[in-house]
């Protein structure tokens, strides 16, 4: 519904604004115009995945970039970014959305250890999220984190036995999404998902 709404509002934004004004409606450019650009770009994605109960679409070809200053994330806008259509800044990342076409192969190329911090679109919330490069895995009681690491030849980053949860990264020759899918199909884990950060915490 969100995608449809965003697209609808993009195409009728001017008339909708006029109508809303006459109707004492709300004017919310933050929720509509910006995200509609992201939504249109995400339509090109061939990678769709679930994380923390939400569904995400990989934004083709792009990935978050560490800002020059960790504190002062680069200030961007929908205009003036060269090839980028739009960019957001979240925490230490800048999130440029370029006008890429993509294929399954190119998406995979960007999903290995050399290209962490890809970005994805959440159709429900209309927000973009950073793909951290970690796989969050709840392991079944019969297998521990190290066994899973060895079995799938993935790197164990951290293990929290009290939660039966471990975090992994893939090697340069592996694909994040394919490995996650394999984990879920293996019967060795309770669940595995690509970790994303959508809502960054900020100091209050």
């Amino acid at each position, binding site marked *: 519904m969100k995608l449809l709404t965003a697209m609808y509002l993009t195409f009728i934004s001017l008339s909708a604004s006029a109508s809303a004004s006459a109707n*004492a409606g709300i004017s919310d450019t*933050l929720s509509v115009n910006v995200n509609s650009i992201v939504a249109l770009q995400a339509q090109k994605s061939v990678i769709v995945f679930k994380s*923390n109960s939400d569904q995400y679409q990989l934004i083709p070809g792009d990935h978050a970039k560490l800002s020059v200053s960790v504190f002062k994330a680069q200030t961007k806008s929908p205009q003036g970014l060269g090839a980028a259509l739009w960019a957001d800044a979240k925490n*230490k990342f800048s999130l440029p959305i370029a006008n890429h076409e993509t294929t399954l192969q190119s998406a995979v190329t960007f999903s290995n250890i050399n290209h962490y911090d890809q970005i994805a679109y959440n159709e*429900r919330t209309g927000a973009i999220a950073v793909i951290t490069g970690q796989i969050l895995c709840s392991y079944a009681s019969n297998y521990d984190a190290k066994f899973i690491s060895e079995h799938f030849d993935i790197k164990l980053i951290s293990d929290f036995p009290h939660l039966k949860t471990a975090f992994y990264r893939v090697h340069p020759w592996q694909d994040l999404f394919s490995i996650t899918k394999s984990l879920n199909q293996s019967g060795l884990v309770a669940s595995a998902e690509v970790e994303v950060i959508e*809502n960054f*915490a*900020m100091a209050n």
Partner: protein
Amino acid sequence: MYHLKYLSPFIVSLILIGCGGEPVLAPTAGDVNVPTLSFIGSSFTNQGVVKTLNISAHASNGEALTYTLISDPVNKVTGSVSGTTLTLTPDINYSGTATLTLTASNGAKDTSKTFTLTVVENDPLYQYQWHLNNSGQTNFASSVGIASEDINVDCAIAAGYTGKGVVVAIVDEGLEIAHEDLSANMVVNGSWDFVGNDLDPTNQANDGDHGTSVAGLLASVGWNGVGGRGVAPSASLKGFNLIKNQLVSNYVSALGGASYSFDVDIFNQSYGSSPISSSTLNTTVEAQYLSGVTSLRGGKGAVYIKSGGNGFYKRTTINDVVHYCSSIYGQKTVLSCQNTNMDPSNSIPYNIIVGALTAKGKKSSYSTAGSSLWISAPGGEYGVSEPAMMTTDQSGCSRGRTGAYGHSYNRFNSVSAGTGHSENLKCNYDSTMSGTSSSAPILSGAVALMLEANPSLTWRDVKHILANTSDQVDPGLSATTINVNGALYMAEPAWVTNSAGYKFHNYYGFGRVNVGAAINAAKSYSQGSLGNFSTTSWVNSASLSQLIPDNSATGLSTTLSVNNHKVIEAVQVKINILHRNSGVIAIELTSPSGTKSMLLNPLNAFGGSDDLTNFVMLSNAFYGESSTGSWTIKVVDSHPAADVGTLENWSIRIFGH
């Protein structure tokens, strides 16, 4: 001058039994009708801290004795005698050596002896810390606070509680572990840097370190001659710079899931997210919170304290640009733009959510309202027209909030030719800190004192004591009503008193923390009095898909029945609503006892975002009530925008005993 009556034996003699080097009043042989006193040495105490000395008195016929204590300087130290204890109370702002003369009289004759009490060195900026002792000071702003609008902590300090032995984690963006007013309280090699994966979370940025300022409010070292004083001036500190690297695994590690955080008693979280559409808490992070309250502190549970948010006017910040609700709805904001329930980590019972108060004892302008607030504590304003908080800053005049990147909002924070204000020459302190980020460490400090007073308290005991001992503030605050299609709609209720007798307000939770009262309650608390904690399963509605009347104060009401009896400690509601502009939706919940709680006020930060999807809200307003019976939810579309939504379904679950 204080006249003290004390029944003692006729033969008057006093022995003040001190600890090494303290004054001793020794009996002196002589006329049995004449009280005789003698002293050896002097005594010491910290500023604001009561000194007690034991007295051994002997007399022969039980005459009443009167004691008089005179101090020089006048009235800087007062005294009282009870039983065998002489209590010396220095004035809260006094430091130095006072000459004290104690006179004992049997009515006919008396004897006076003189000794000294040295009140050890001041924390020079303590005088500006209105949250500790509000005397109406400005803290360099242009207006004053109101005397006594503080957290009543001095009596706890005076009684000797300083947070010693309690470990508090500052989960933030950094912590300058070498700061002159923090380093003595740092746990050596106890912190963690999530950026460099090392033991030093000192912030490398120059424009102020939030965590360092937060830490100072909690545990600036006391009586060391520099800076101010923390609420718990001897608490032990660890710093985890989670905000700099927010991987889920780092959340788990910082909140008690790693070896370096296993021993933490209190986690201070002065941060939050401000999503503009409904979001859900990461299930792994939620599992860590549950694990923390279940297993840490030897099973008594760590205490998680979190700031409620600074979003009463502010919607969110993108690209360093602040967006306000007024820009969405085209009118002055009278309701909270963000709601504490919008940050999903606020909507779990394991976090104690804190709102902010001014030096006048009212809600800070920015403090986010919401039913998931538990309590309030000082957070101040901005330090220009109204007082902010005095606390630690990044060290040096070339960095920090007082320095090259300074918040030169007032003269204390101003820097000239590389030198700070005369009371802040090295620019190590900041008088403009504000926010619920300040309220959280003040509460964390208070809880550190409580845990020192009674280490057996569980995390739920702490919440219970806070709810029972907090002070109602702003009692005359009226409800906020808005016009919905010609009808008045109460969009933010006034204070309510629930059927268990607890007063609650979405601005304040149960009120302002009263440290002295909390300490007293902690000391006398009966362990296990709350019973076993448990959670009901979700009670789910059917698939409803009912229309929410557009622009109608009547709204849509529907009920669910809860049959599982519990004494309520918290209530969660999960809801699914389809609506093109979810920010115009209000959600109320009424308990079987008739208590109403506004879970989500209308005209909020969700604005034109679609739908509320598995949106979880928490209310503390029903604390102590019975869960059994019919719960009613009311959904109101408060705005004339031409859109009609539907309530798809909702669920409720109860946390309690």
